[in-house]
């Protein structure tokens, strides 16, 4: 790159140790040279860019110009602007305008059109509707940012940031290296080495810390050195498909982005990357087919169980037949082409599909496919014959049928790959080699396939496998010799289906976690399209058979597979007894439903102190919460989202109100400022429909009246110009006392943020801050709902109340009295003394008793 400079640098390096001064001088020179070069190149590149852009603009302008020529003149007046000019003002004669004094023409126009008055609306800042609170996004913070206001009266002067404390120097930002700097850095270090002086010189030159220079150099080194390697990795990565990823990797986004409290992705309230809390008590298994013994499909394990039974019963029978198998197989070898034309026909279709792709070698592809067909059909045929021999075992037919189906399903894929891969490579020399491999693979395949269909636990059965395998091998050999290419793909295809990929194994284990050992449900819900119920069941048995008892490990190959699988199983979950599945049926959780609210809650209410609520964060305690429990520590109850056991002493137990509809302080939930939770409270339920759909029958008398925020049973609110000031919120329909009107939603911000924003809002004289709990303040300034426009009154018709709804604090607005339709809504912002704006202050003397207000009442945020 810089050949001239490198000469001098090599010299300088030579003498570096003795004459560092000289070297440094050289270095500085070099650095300056480089800088000049980089800058010169920059000038050129900017010029290039501007020139390029200029051409683009020229193009754009010509386009614009054509749109400005309006030929369709609708009105034919002289200039389109009235009949004649109102007035003409002559220009200054030549030279006159250059004088220091010029006379200006006063524009006094006799006629001017009136723009009729239009009612303007009260000012507001554009806001977004929220039906649910949101946590503030990082970039929305105003802390440490300069804010520009302008002086209302001076109209001109802009005031930046109000007080000194606001000007917080941003943290030392990481220097972003430009390409030019990278180049200087790289060139210098490559040529002068990483001596201390060199680093110092460079860091001084660029004007950053030495550590950053060093860091950057190592990243650059990695970048340049690792370039090839990375490309290689990338290429490999692209080929990888999801199935090869591990389940945990695939679930990563689920774990990080799915909110388990709101049951949605990318939750704006609780945020991403929440700490995963796993309940210490496992959910009972979800079991649908528990007592239903009907097979779930043709591939159901129940089918194979029948087979197994029969096989076990007629083991002797089979063994006598086995000897014949080989012969039959050989026999059918000859029969194949004609006898199984149906299969052939099916595959012809496939080959037709392949044809256009391989137009060059149509003939050979057909031959190849034909061959393929022979192979596979013979294979399946072999099995068929082997099985058919035993007439008494009727179930075999079914297996065989399913097997055939499966093979048919596989074939299109195989044929496709075979023909596309095999044909362009008409190299018959490698045929033998391919054949050899083929042989091996096919062996495994057929073994596997058989293993799938017939349980591999029975020794005699195993014999069949071997026999069939042998048969298949024989069958295979012939076509191989005749036409040896394009066969390698088939076994691979079959192999794919029978071998368990890591992700399948992991999915299986998850399935066991969810459904217990129910292969029907696992196969259907987690492995659909990947594994059949029977395969799952076999796998299940294999993995359990490797447990100490009963294992008649058939062949070394199987043994290996099982071993691998077992390893998996042992890692991921403890060995479970077979009975496990049944456990799902009825798993009664025994503990008292007796409502025993957390003592501290009661205390707080009893105190009636104006104490702010505490933000709840689920704890991850195992079983019982002890002193270490963060919930206990924070003074919150444990909730259903906590990891602890349901019998945890710190849990809020909900209510068991029967008749009161939970509308009074009789209800422990209501009294604690909480909404009832159908998951927790005994008689509080949510229903839709009249019972005809089989929903749970009514418990208790009426529907719980303390779930109104949860169920969004709100009133229609209207936005209009207030009778008092600015905007106001109005009610569409009349309501009675204590009716729920709606939620006050907004951004959840920290108290620190709120203090800062409060100052900004005070200048604008409109604040939408609302104290929520000890951690958060609601800000409805840019995001919220219409209730944010409800005005303050010291004699209000509404009140706000912070409720704990499913672990989250939310502000509900309720009617304080009967309110008529289309009345304006007011509530007491609960300003501190002297904090209320002038219009909101009470006339002399009538100060309200502060202590008379219950703690649950929300109040507008006050900046400190």
């Amino acid at each position, binding site marked *: 790159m810089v050949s001239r400079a490198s000469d001098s640098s090599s010299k300088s390096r030579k003498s570096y140790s003795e004459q560092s001064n000289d070297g440094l001088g050289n270095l500085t020179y070099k650095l300056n040279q480089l800088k000049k070069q980089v800058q010169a190149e920059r000038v050129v590149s900017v010029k290039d860019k501007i020139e390029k852009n200029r051409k683009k603009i020229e193009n*754009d302008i010509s386009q614009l*110009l054509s*749109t400005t020529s309006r030929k369709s003149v609708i009105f034919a*007046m002289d200039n389109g602007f009235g009949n004649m000019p109102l007035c003409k003002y002559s220009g200054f004669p030549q030279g006159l*305008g250059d004088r220091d004094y010029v006379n200006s023409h006063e524009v006094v126009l006799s006629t001017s059109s009136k723009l009729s008055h239009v009612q303007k609306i009260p000012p507001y800042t554009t806001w*977004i509707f929220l039906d649910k609170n949101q946590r503030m996004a990082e970039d929305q913070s105003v802390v440490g940012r300069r804010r520009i206001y302008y002086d209302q009266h001076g109209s001109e002067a802009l005031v930046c940031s109000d007080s000194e404390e606001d000007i917080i120097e941003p943290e030392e930002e990481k220097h972003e290296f430009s390409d030019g700097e990278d180049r200087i850095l790289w060139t210098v270090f490559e040529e002068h080495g990483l001596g201390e002086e060199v680093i110092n010189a460079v860091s001084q030159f660029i004007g950053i810390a030495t550590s950053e220079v060093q860091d950057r150099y190592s990243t650059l080194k990695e970048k340049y050195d690792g370039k090839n390697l990375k490309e290689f990795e990338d290429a490999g990565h692209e080929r990888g498909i999801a199935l090869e990823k591990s389940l945990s990797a695939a679930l990563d986004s689920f774990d990080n982005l799915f909110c388990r409290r709101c049951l949605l992705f990318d939750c704006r309230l609780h945020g991403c990357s929440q700490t995963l809390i796993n309940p210490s008590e496992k959910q009972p298994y979800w079991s649908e087919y528990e007592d239903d013994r009907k097979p779930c499909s043709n591939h159901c394990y129940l089918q194979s169980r029948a087979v197994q039974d029969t096989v076990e019963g007629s083991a002797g029978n089979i063994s006598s037949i086995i000897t014949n198998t080989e012969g039959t197989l050989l026999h059918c070898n000859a029969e194949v082409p004609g006898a199984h034309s149906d299969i052939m026909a099916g595959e012809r279709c496939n080959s037709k599909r392949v044809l256009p792709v391989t137009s060059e070698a149509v003939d050979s592809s057909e031959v190849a496919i034909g061959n393929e067909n022979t192979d596979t059909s013979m294979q399946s045929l072999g099995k068929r014959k082997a099985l058919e021999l035993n007439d008494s075992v009727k179930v075999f037919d079914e297996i065989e049928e399913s097997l055939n189906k499966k093979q048919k399903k596989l074939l299109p894929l195989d044929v496709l790959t075979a023909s596309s891969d095999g044909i362009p490579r008409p190299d018959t020399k490698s045929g033998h080699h391919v054949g050899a491999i083929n042989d091996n693979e096919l062996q495994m395949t057929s073994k596997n396939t058989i293993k799938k269909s017939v349980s591999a636990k029975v020794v005699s059965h195993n014999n069949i496998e071997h026999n069939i395998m042998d048969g298949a091998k024989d069958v295979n050999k012939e076509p191989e010799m005749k036409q040896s290419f394009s066969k390698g793909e088939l076994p691979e295809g079959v192999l794919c289906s029978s071998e368990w990929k890591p992700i399948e194994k992991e999915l299986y284990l998850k399935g066991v976690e969810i459904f217990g050992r129910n292969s029907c449900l696992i196969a259907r819900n987690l492995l659909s399209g990947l594994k059949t119920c029977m395969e799952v069941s076999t796998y299940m048995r294999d993995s359990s058979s490797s447990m100490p008892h009963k294992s008649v490990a058939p062949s070394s190959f199987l043994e290996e597979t099982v071993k691998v699988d077992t390893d998996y199983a042992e890692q991921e979950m403890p060995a479970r007894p077979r009975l496990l599945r049944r456990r799902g049926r009825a798993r009664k959780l025994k503990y008292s439903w007796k409502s025993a609210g957390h003592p501290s809650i009661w205390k707080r209410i009893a105190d009636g102190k104006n104490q702010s609520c505490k933000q709840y964060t689920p704890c991850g305690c195992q079983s019982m919460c002890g002193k270490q429990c963060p919930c206990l520590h924070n003074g919150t109850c444990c909730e259903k989202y906590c990891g602890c056991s349901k019998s945890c002493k710190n849990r809020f137990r909900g209510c068991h109100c029967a008749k009161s509809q939970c509308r009074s302080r009789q209800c422990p939930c209501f009294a604690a400022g909480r909404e009832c939770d159908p998951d927790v409270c005994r008689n509080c339920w949510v229903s839709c429909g009249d019972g005809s759909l089989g929903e749970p029958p009514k418990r208790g008398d009426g529907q719980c009246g303390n779930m109104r925020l949860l169920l969004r049973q709100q009133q229609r609110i209207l936005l209009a110009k207030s009778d008092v000031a600015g905007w106001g919120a109005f009610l569409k329909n009349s309501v009675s006392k204590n009716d729920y009107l709606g939620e006050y939603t907004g951004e959840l911000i920290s108290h620190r943020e709120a203090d800062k924003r409060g100052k900004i809002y005070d200048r604008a004289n409109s604040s939408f801050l609302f104290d929520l709990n000890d951690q958060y303040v609601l800000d409805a300034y840019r995001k919220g709902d219409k209730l944010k426009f409800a005005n303050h009154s010291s004699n209000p018709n509404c009140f706000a109340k912070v409720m704990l709804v499913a672990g989250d604090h939310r502000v509900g607005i309720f009617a304080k009295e009967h309110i008529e339709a289309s009345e304006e809504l007011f509530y007491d912002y609960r300003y501190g003394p002297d904090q209320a704006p002038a219009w909101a202050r009470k006339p002399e003397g009538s100060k309200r008793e502060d202590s008379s207000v219950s703690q649950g009442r929300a109040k507008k945020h006050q900046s400190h």
Partner: protein
Amino acid sequence: MARTAIGCEPLVGSLTPSKKREYRVTNKLQEGKRPLYAVVFNFIDSRYFNVFATVGGNRVTVYQCLEGGVIAALQSYVDEDKEESFYTVSWACNVDGIPFLVAGGINGIIRVIDVSNEKLHKSFVGHGDSINEIRTQPLKPSLVVSASKDESVRLWNVQTGICILIFAGAGGHRNEVLSVDFHPSDIYRIASCGMDNTVKIWSMKEFWTYVEKSFTWTDLPSKFPTKYVQFPVFIASVHSNYVDCNRWLGDFILSKVKLSVDNEIVLWEPKMKEQSPGEGTADILQKYPVPECDIWFIKFSCDFHYNAAAIGNREGKIFVWELQSSPPVLIARLSHAQSKSPIRQTAMSYDGSTILSCCEDGAIWRWDAIPT
């Protein structure tokens, strides 16, 4: 921006005028005493390239530039609300080509005037605060976009009176929006800037069906399903201070930034960061200094071909920059002993031969290039 990295230095224009073109004063009008905030030539309709409009106070006036420095007053409009103070005006037209004037100001109401019959066509109520700039989509001149103190940018159809889109919300501006501009060829793109020191580029590509729908809407405009565009495609905090004027220059952006005492116009290239869509960096290519300009709400203007830009300063002087030369060249520095009042906005004629300036003291100056 603290310091420019090596290899990213912008090319800064020299303040020595090249005298490529010389201008002299050819007329001066005095429109009362209230400040004039905007002056703009009609670039929408080639028949009226010499027609311009000014706004100030509650008045909108239409003039025509004639030969020999003559200015003809054509029309005048006065808002019945004396409190109104118009800040901005833009030319537009309906689909038949009938010219409209669109003005807005402190009241937050957009007035659409049909100048062909001198009548108020429509008034758009919706912005929650004053309107700082209105611009017209040159390729579809029935579309105008407005920038407001209410932190939003809104797209309107002047033909049907529909508010089509509101650019605000989660990714929107966090303080007054001072300026907005349509991309010259990418019809979906707009750039806005304001007191939150950021420049945001928005795309309405995904919302274009609504734009089309607005042309055929026959129901009440208030029933139109106005959409919020909450996320810009690009956000750049190019500047450490507010940005009160920005214009597209091809794919680059010219924005005017306040410095401590002086101002400068910066030409920069928006560069998307690959990893995080929406976030971007600005590669500052060139700088056009504007001395003695420490007040805000001073806007620059370009000629039709974007060859030059004219900007006034607090002292009543005008700097005419050649935009597309590299490094930038100051074509001329216009000053007059009597022009002392801050120049709020300039207007360059189609070919740049005439420059108009409107001032805080209510004066309109006309400068004409001396033919060579």
